[in-house]
């Protein structure tokens, strides 16, 4: 496990998303106004690129493709249409630098080679 530099906090304006390359791992940094989150670069629904499809308002990240949404402050799923949780990396800010704990790349069930039947339903 190692803390990996993502970008400076000042590079991600409030209510925006930034795609960064963290030593070969593509990570989205989200500034939801009162904090930051680091996550895989795709929507857990149908792999939409969240840096293009995502929009943040009132701490809620919404993917505009099918309106799946998550509260970035609590990481709760927001609204009935959202069927899978968002995965995030542990994140810390040091001297204006954002660092994530990137042990291995986070992926969603549909990307895992060993997914079983339960994973297909997003409950694995």
């Amino acid at each position, binding site marked *: 496990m190692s803390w990996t530099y993502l970008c400076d906090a000042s590079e991600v304006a409030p*209510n925006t998303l930034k795609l960064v390359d963290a030593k070969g791992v593509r990570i989205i940094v989200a500034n939801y106004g009162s904090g930051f989150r680091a996550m895989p670069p795709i929507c857990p629904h149908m792999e939409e690129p969240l840096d293009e499809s995502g*929009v943040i*308002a009132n701490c809620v990240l*919404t993917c*505009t*493709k099918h309106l799946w*949404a998550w509260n970035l402050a609590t990481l709760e799923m927001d609204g009935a249409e959202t069927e899978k949780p968002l995965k995030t990396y542990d994140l810390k800010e040091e001297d204006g630098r954002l660092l994530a704990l990137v042990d291995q790349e986070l992926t969603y069930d549909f990307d895992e080679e060993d997914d079983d039947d339960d994973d297909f*339903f997003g409950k694995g």
Partner: protein
Amino acid sequence: MTTTSLARADVAAIERVDADRCAITVETRSGTFGFDCATSETLLYAGLAHGLTLPHECATGTCGTCRARVMSGDVEVAWEEAPGAAKLKRDKGDILLCQARALGDCVLRVPSDVAERPLRHQIPAPRPGVVGNLQQLTSDVVHFEIVLAEPMTFDAGQFVVIEAPGLEGGRAYSMVNYGRDLDRLELVVKRKPGGGFGDWINGPLASGANVKVFGPLGRATFHPDEGHDLLMIAGGSGIAGMMSILSRGVRERYFETRKAKVFFGVRTLADGFYLEDFARAIDAGGGNVEVTLALSHEDAGRLDHPDFPTVKLAHGFVHEIAGEAMAGAYDNVMAYIAGPPPMVDGAIRSLIIGGVGRSAIRYDKFG
């Protein structure tokens, strides 16, 4: 864990009506359902025609929303290269329901919540029809009708998938009209470069042609008893569903108490259509109906339409014009969006940033 409302064997026993049809069991996040399916129809159409709300959007292979996994049984896939199939895990048995036909009894899994015949759900079915009454509205927009062999009931805002002779697969188009037991669909198509159906409908074979229609489909529907003010943002032929919503609102005097704001995006002044219909709706709305024609590629230098002065003009992309005009005015609004995918995405983004709740946004993406 998934709940199972019926054992598979029971489902098969109930649903199997004759030996030529396949018994389909579908396991979903909200329970297990069964329906039967002819080998000639797609699994999506058969399931929808049974009244299941199987996830889908375009129903034509483009979007990928109707993905499912074949747990047992054999299926045949019509269009292997469908754009929506690009991300499927074929080695796991994943398919697009809109492209697959059963070759025998099958068990499928669908990774979504599914309901069976919910309230207000118009169950779709296949119907033959004949194309007629073609009218050129602009240089690249054609209004046409399909006379159905069997009548269809559909809500304002719904669409159908049309299969035309000689064209592979189907194309989704929203109805301009709405109603109960109608034998005539009014539709509009905008010709796009390389667009198969747009070229076909403009060609010599369209008038009088026999087509297959599947529908009604779509959730971006208008129900007057919901009591919302309406915001409609549409680009190009996406205006079709908005015309049916406006038409129902006018006919039921909805705009005596509720407002409607329509933002219609086209490239230039000459690309605008349905202007007489807009003018009539504005007139009938007595100040509660506003229509703005947003011109993306022309600054007309004036704020009203030269021929239909009650129709406003604006210069810019329709979702941006709508976002600016609506800022801070979203209370009790139900938003309807239709048009090219980038416009739909832009409009959804404007609305969410403007504070509109997701349950107040209705759209169907044909991709």
